[in-house]
């Protein structure tokens, strides 16, 4: 079975393709853009495409294949599993299959694609959080330095004061530290 993954998000396409390799003997390719010559040459049984790809409408038109158009594909709508199409739409994945492919095989492909889409989102979320955490740690360090200088505290004392301020105000320590630095900047005349 040949599966083509089209996704403008290259990293996610690669992740989906790698996941599909493990499903069953399948030849999997991934690409960021629909290319007619490539599709004709590869002749996929299934096309898995990201909902955010503008090429979806072009694929959609192949259902009405006429002379000279690539092999016909139909969107997977299995009436026996009405929830599946909705799940896929919400996950951001669409699939087009050559007419006649067994629904069970499509299901396993879609399942992998959906879980890899979710995994990508989680990884990106983790990365964003890690960056924010790192940023927050830098801000806390600078606020500690400010308190040590202005209040003559040692590092531990400065951290304890920040933590107390955070608890008193019910805000994360990074936010309190950023506020403190901003106020210090105003008092120094940075914003005037």
């Amino acid at each position, binding site marked *: 079975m040949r599966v083509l993954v089209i996704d403008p998000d290259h990293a996610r396409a690669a992740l989906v393709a790698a996941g599909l390799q493990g499903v069953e003997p399948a030849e999997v390719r991934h690409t960021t853009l629909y290319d007619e010559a490539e599709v004709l040459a590869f002749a996929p049984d299934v096309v898995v495409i990201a*909902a*955010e*790809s*503008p*090429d*979806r*409408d*072009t*694929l*959609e*038109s192949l*259902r*009405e294949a*006429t*002379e*000279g158009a690539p092999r016909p594909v139909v969107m997977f709508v299995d009436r026996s599993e009405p929830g599946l*199409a*909705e799940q896929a*739409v*919400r996950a951001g994945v*669409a699939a087009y299959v050559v007419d006649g492919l067994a629904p069970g095989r499509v299901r396993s492909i879609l399942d992998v694609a959906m879980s890899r889409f979710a995994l990508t989102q989680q990884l990106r979320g983790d990365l964003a959080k890690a960056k924010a955490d790192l940023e927050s740690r830098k801000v806390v360090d600078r606020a500690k330095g400010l308190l040590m200088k202005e209040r003559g505290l040692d590092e531990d004392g400065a951290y304890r004061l920040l933590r107390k301020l955070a608890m008193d105000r019910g805000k994360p320590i990074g936010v309190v530290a950023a506020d403190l630095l901003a106020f210090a900047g105003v008092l120094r005349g940075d914003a005037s």
Partner: protein
Amino acid sequence: MSGLSELRLGFIPLTDCAPLAVAATLGFFEDEGLAVELVREASWATIRDKVAVGALDGAHMLAPMALAAGGAILAPLALNRNGAAITVSTALAGTIGPKGEGLAEVVAARRASGRGTLTFAVVFPESMHNYLLRDWLAAAGIDPDRDVRLVVIPPPRMVERMRAGEVDGFCVGAPWNAVAEAEGLGRILITASQLLPGGPDKVLGVPATLAEQRPDDLRACLRAVIRGAAWADDPINREDLIAILARPDVVGAAPAAIARALANEIVFHRDGASLPRREDGLWMASRMVRWGQLRAGVDLDALVDRVYRSDLYRDAAEISGHLLA
């Protein structure tokens, strides 16, 4: 948010998303008690799927697309009339008239010399653009399925594909015809208002479940969009409308190109343009049958009545005091 009902509405970067963009930008949704998130989507297929499953509560949609969904999607409001046009490459423009005069000769000459068929693009199989272009080709003596190659390209990509020499002509909505002309790539041969005066184009498509489960929110949404359409039609607001549409997160095209179809082509609200008229639905259904998208024998009247819900429009419009033409 305090007590506002939340709605997610999708759109495609085209001038006729104006009633939605205006209502969102000027706070018309909030005035009706709604917190609306406008989501730009990359394809019509994704718009259709998201509305059909309720992942979007409504969207800027090709009118025939709502009919093709068979009842899962309702069209309680028309977003605009006219706005599309047929544009051909500058190379072709010199030899073809506005009604396709001379095109059959070009097709025959290319066939005789083995230079391959001409390629025309539309935005989606179920679209006014497809039907208008097919009718135009047929009237010029061209079989759209045999004599030329018809492909589908999303609206914001039409111009780049013409620049790459991959398409010889297309039928697309504003502002992309004017953009092609401004860039010296193509020439507008004929507009939708000349092909089918006052013809339908986009609708607000909503999930049938929204009308059942949240009728008050739907009514509020329609009122805000009707207000947006009326504002967009008023010449006094023209410059502000162009500024709203030109923003990169809305249409993202040059203001001069956007201005062109607004001047004398596209209609959002006046003369009852917002009303989803039964005859519009029937015209499109007849084309869907003609071009093989609907089986002959389908009850077209019943289909149109199920999808084209002028009753929902009237219900909302009369409460808000807007006059129906």
